[in-house]
């Protein structure tokens, strides 16, 4: 299963941070470091395991913790229609 960016997302710069929103939704989301990395990488579609591998190559730390952070971030992205999945 591949994660893909939604084309409806608009990206806003807020100082040094990045925020995302979908125009028919009320919320706007400022990304933390992990979420920004995942969003940037998702210029192309990737699977969960590919994203997990890339996180591990980029950031130092516990891989189990990274897997949990990645799962939470992707769940939020899906919840707010920032990304969608495709088989």
């Amino acid at each position, binding site marked *: 299963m591949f994660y893909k960016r939604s084309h409806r997302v608009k990206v*806003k710069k*807020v100082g*040094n*941070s990045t*925020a995302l*929103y979908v125009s028919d939704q009320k919320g*706007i*989301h400022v990304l933390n470091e992990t979420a920004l990395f995942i969003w940037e990488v998702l210029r192309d579609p990737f699977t969960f395991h590919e994203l997990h591998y890339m996180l591990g190559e980029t950031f130092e730390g516990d891989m189990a913790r990274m897997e949990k952070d990645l799962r939470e971030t992707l769940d939020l992205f899906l919840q707010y229609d920032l990304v969608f999945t495709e088989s």
Partner: protein
Amino acid sequence: MKTFCLSFPRLNLSLTTPDEIVPDVESAFFHSIGPGTHPSPHHEYGIEATPVGLGLFKNGRLTGHFGSSFELICRLEEDIENTLIQGMGNWVGFHAGAVMIGKGACVIAGNPDTGKTTTTFNLVEMGHTFLCEEVTPVDPETFRVYPYPQVLTIEGTYAEKYRLRYPVQNGTLKIIDSRMARYHANAVGSDPVLLKTILVPAYDPSQTPGIEEVSPGEMFTEILGYCFPPNGDDEHLFDSVIRICEKAEIFRLRTNSLRSMRELLKELFDPDPEPSDP
């Protein structure tokens, strides 16, 4: 009967009131009463004595009955706030107070009971010029804050404590009961002022007091939460608040007492006061 012309940012109103209520109206809207009458006010308010008390009318329609002029004026203030917010167009309406510090405006935003109004009150009593209470209109194109200088409503017990510790010198503080006191600032800013600072107070008796400078990215979504719903689309509000956050310096003010608030405000805005004459 007397008719007042009330002027607010992008909003002109008329208010016709029986003679016996005139002093209360003058006291509540002192800084917004203009000379003469508007040729075409946006809305016409009227107060009439009725067998069951006082009736408040808006554009000829009865909006409520009240047992006292105080209750009626509190309701009228609220209605004017809502009307102001609806009429602001593409401006951003912050749920905030504001004062002028030097040549710039300081917007004091936050959730209820975090010390927003008491921060405004303390800054005015420290000698800064009062601009806004409850609603702070900001033009996101020019970054100017438009004065909306209404009466400050603060907790009665806080006002009692304040009066025991400090003199009230830049306004009139009237304590109604333990729950409520009303503060009328003597002087207010009449012209729009360039936004310089956003202050977010956070009162918690168990925390260590301090000032924290925060970045636009850290504060953006929180500050967005202190805005009234936009009259236009959400994207315009997002873009406006982003620009405002990037333009302003933003501080979180962690206080745990009246004294700590006063000391931190002094540290932030008056760090090197002129030495007094011996």
